[in-house]
């Protein structure tokens, strides 16, 4: 819907006419959603002013970066943060980098590599914001989820500027907690509409040592790049196991031994998607390697800080694989495949190939939590995929799920998805039902409750089963958002 003239004018006064669009025709480009308008601020001050205008005119808003996924509500103001794309600082002494929201993970990582540093890039891909909360292949040694955030600059739903952590009292970004309790309790971004209220305009993110090259030197042309030379202090293998239990045992031992840079538990279908450049190639490779793997498995990358360190880590890896029956997939030992995976794991760019390329869309149930517990749930969820595969409704991945240990196996991530065609209404329905059933089973059987879904899917059954968190969250939202500018689809607020 086009904005009222005065409201349009008010926004345009802030950002300039060239940075606001309320042409209804153009809103479809964003998420095929009828937004009220798209407005693009250039800095924190403009974000604040826009948010205050939203409060004044009772308009709901939603911020976006590169925006791969999310839930988007018609009639909201889309705050597109594309113009806020600066790396503010890279602080090697304190192992943190400060970025604006539209810095991509790839850009940050590329700068960090030059300095022997790294950032954990989320599995959704290196085109995503460097500030995302989430999980990715490097979780094993590079932390995950909200635990990589330090200080945060936050514009509240009322348009106030709150600088969370050390930046609130000084010019330093190294700490995100205090004084007193940490407001990082609120600072989470996930699938909207239940994302943290307000807009994050800068975040400091933890950095890690990078033992690899200062840049990947590649040859070839897209989509078939290859490393000119595999780093001589890094090694990649894919191991598969007789059983999920053995795989988890190996994962835990590897975690406890702290020898792996990456443990990335993708299944054979995902491996074959990752390293191929077309659906047909992927199908052929999947056929080939699914006959070669023993069962579930994972990618391992070892990286040594010295020759002695490298040798030690390899020795431990071999020992653990021998103990747990992990078998190395020969196809991945071939340099032309191994090095693709090396790059795709350290600069994730394979998610699209795994999830979207096969059918056009996918639906996923992710969980970040206790690995050995959630994997048991995932086995059942995978079995429940088989009838859909049989009917040709979803892409055949053998009923696979994936996941990995996080922070040397202390935590874990388990996820399962169905890839299918968005044009197939029967598939859409079947997958929706599968997701609902498996999500409900997770709750009923006490594995976990979905933490990433929009608030609207929380019903009377789930909330009370999870400490009534939703009621507390509504209260928090009410307190932070008195004018109701944060969209909450289909959910009634507690206070009138």
């Amino acid at each position, binding site marked *: 819907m086009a904005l009222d003239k005065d409201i349009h004018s008010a926004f345009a006064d802030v950002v300039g006419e060239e940075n606001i669009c309320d042409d209804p025709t153009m809103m479809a480009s964003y998420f095929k959603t009828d937004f009220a308008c798209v407005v693009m601020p250039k800095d924190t001050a403009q974000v604040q002013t826009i948010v205050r205008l939203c409060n004044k005119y009772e308009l709901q808003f939603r911020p976006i970066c590169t925006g791969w996924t999310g839930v988007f509500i018609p009639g909201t103001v889309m705050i597109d943060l594309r113009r806020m794309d600066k790396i503010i600082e890279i602080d090697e002494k304190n192992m943190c980098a400060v970025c604006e929201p539209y810095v991509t993970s790839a850009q940050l990582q590329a700068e960090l590599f030059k300095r022997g540093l790294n950032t954990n890039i989320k599995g959704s891909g290196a085109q995503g914001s460097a500030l995302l909360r989430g999980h990715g292949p490097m979780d094993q040694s590079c932390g995950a989820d909200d635990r990589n955030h330090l200080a945060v600059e936050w514009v509240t739903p009322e348009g106030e500027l709150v600088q969370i952590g050390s930046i609130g009292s000084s010019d330093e970004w190294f700490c995100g907690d205090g004084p007193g309790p940490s407001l990082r309790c609120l600072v989470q971004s996930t699938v909207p509409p239940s994302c943290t209220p307000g807009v994050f305009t800068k975040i400091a993110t933890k950095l890690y040592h990078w033992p690899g090259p200062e840049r990947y030197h590649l040859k070839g042309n897209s989509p078939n790049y290859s490393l000119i030379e595999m780093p001589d202090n890094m090694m990649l293998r894919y191991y598969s196991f007789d059983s999920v239990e053995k795989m988890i045992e190996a994962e835990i031992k590897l975690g406890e031994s702290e020898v792996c840079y990456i443990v990335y538990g993708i299944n054979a279908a995902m491996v074959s998607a990752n390293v191929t450049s077309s659906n047909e190639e992927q199908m052929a490779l999947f056929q080939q390697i699914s006959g070669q793997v023993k069962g579930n498995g994972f990618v391992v990358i070892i990286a040594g800080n010295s020759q002695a360190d490298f040798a030690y880590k390899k020795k431990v890896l071999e020992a653990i694989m021998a103990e747990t029956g992990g078998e190395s997939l020969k196809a991945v030992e071939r340099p032309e495949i191994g090095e693709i995976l090396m790059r795709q794991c350290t600069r994730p760019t394979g998610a699209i190939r795994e999830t979207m*390329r096969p059918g*056009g869309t996918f639906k996923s149930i992710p969980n970040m939590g206790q690995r050995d517990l959630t994997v048991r749930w995932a086995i059942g969820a995978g079995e429940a995929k088989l009838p859909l595969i049989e009917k040709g409704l979803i892409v055949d991945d053998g009923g696979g799920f994936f996941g990995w240990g996080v922070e040397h196996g202390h935590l874990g991530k388990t996820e399962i998805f169905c890839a299918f065609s968005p044009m197939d209404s029967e*598939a859409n329905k079947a997958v929706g039902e599968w997701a609902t059933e498996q999500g409900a089973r997770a709750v009923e059987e006490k594995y976990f409750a979905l933490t990433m879904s929009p608030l609207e899917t929380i019903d009377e059954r789930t909330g009370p089963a999870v400490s009534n968190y939703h009621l507390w969250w509504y209260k928090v939202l009410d307190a932070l958002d008195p004018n109701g500018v944060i969209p909450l689809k289909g959910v009634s607020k507690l206070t009138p």
Partner: protein
Amino acid sequence: MALEDYAGDMNMCCRCSACKFIPLQMVSGFTHANVCPSISRYNFHFFSGGGRLNLGAVGLEKGFNYTPWYLSSIYNCQLCGACDVSCKYGMDMEVLLPLQALRIQAVKDGQAHPELQKVVERMTATGSMVPPEGAKRGDWAKSLGLKDAGKQKVDVLYHVGCLTSYDKGMQKLAQATAQLLGAAGVDFGILGDAETCCGARAYEMGHEKEFLAQAKKSMELIKQSGAKTLVTSCATCYQAYAVLYDRFGLKGDLEVLHTSQLLADLIEQGKLQPKNDLGLSVTYHDPCHLGRLGEPWIHWEGTKIPGDRFIFDPPKTYRRGTGGVYEPPRDVLRSLPGVTLTEMDRIKEYAWCSGSCGGVTDSNPEFAQWTATERIEEALCTGAEALVSTEPWSEKLLADTIAANGGALKVYDLVELVAQATEEGGR
């Protein structure tokens, strides 16, 4: 194919934003990670490949509404194909073809850009993309004594192109090319005044009908010349004859070579011997039309196999920018004594467009110059004294932009340097 035929592709867009950036594996720093001039300049998502696909998908469903923003979105795009390459790193779907189809649809619906309309009308009337202003197309060849392919059969036809023919500053390219071919003993001819526009820029402007009419005229002349091989030093013309004409079934058996390819062969065969030390540090700009858009056309017809996957019968091989002409110009540069080549960050299939494609130089000169300025800045980062390319449209825009901003970076076409380096050219 009509726009409707791309419905599946347009609905495949998963909004990942990869289309805005160079293939992410190639990102080597904070700067020069963007690949799409359109969104880099205008920032709204509807200036990206993915944004336009979404518009197309919804437009097919609900009808097209040609608002000023919509028209701005589809015309402020060089159709350079970078989004297509980046998307196809991960996806099996078309991006550039639906974008072209969207523009063609707009023209069909009476929404031609007025400036582009004028250019296309001029092309139809004069056979030139560039205003002749009283000159003759073959004037550059006066006194060179070249074979007239309009009057005698030739095996090799040198197609000059509109800009090189008419622009006084660019005519030296044609002269240098002719001299080099002659020196190498290539028996070739030109159509001179009879040469006519390849029509490719009209296609990019959305005027498919006029392009086809022009293409047929051009091919007729080429057939009449008897040429088996067409050589051109214009990347746009190269892409026209090698790819577009093939796509529309007009090319036949004609072999199409860009001068960079021919020069590379001639140097390798010893028929041209660069001897003069040029003492020049250069960087090379991959023109879109020679690079990613110059990838041979793949004829394919098929249907989607019903079911879970986006696959076809027969299997569809996608053009992903892999097979463009990237190495021959580099081989030539490496063969020139005293020339050191330093690559920019965005090269080959993920090169940043110079800004001259897609009709933007005519529809929005400011945007074209902005795009060129970005490229010039990137070239300057290499420390090179000169920017070399193989596309006169790019070279002109880049040179004009440098001049307008008071810069010192030199701009050369490849053939100029080869000419300087060979005995025949001298310095």
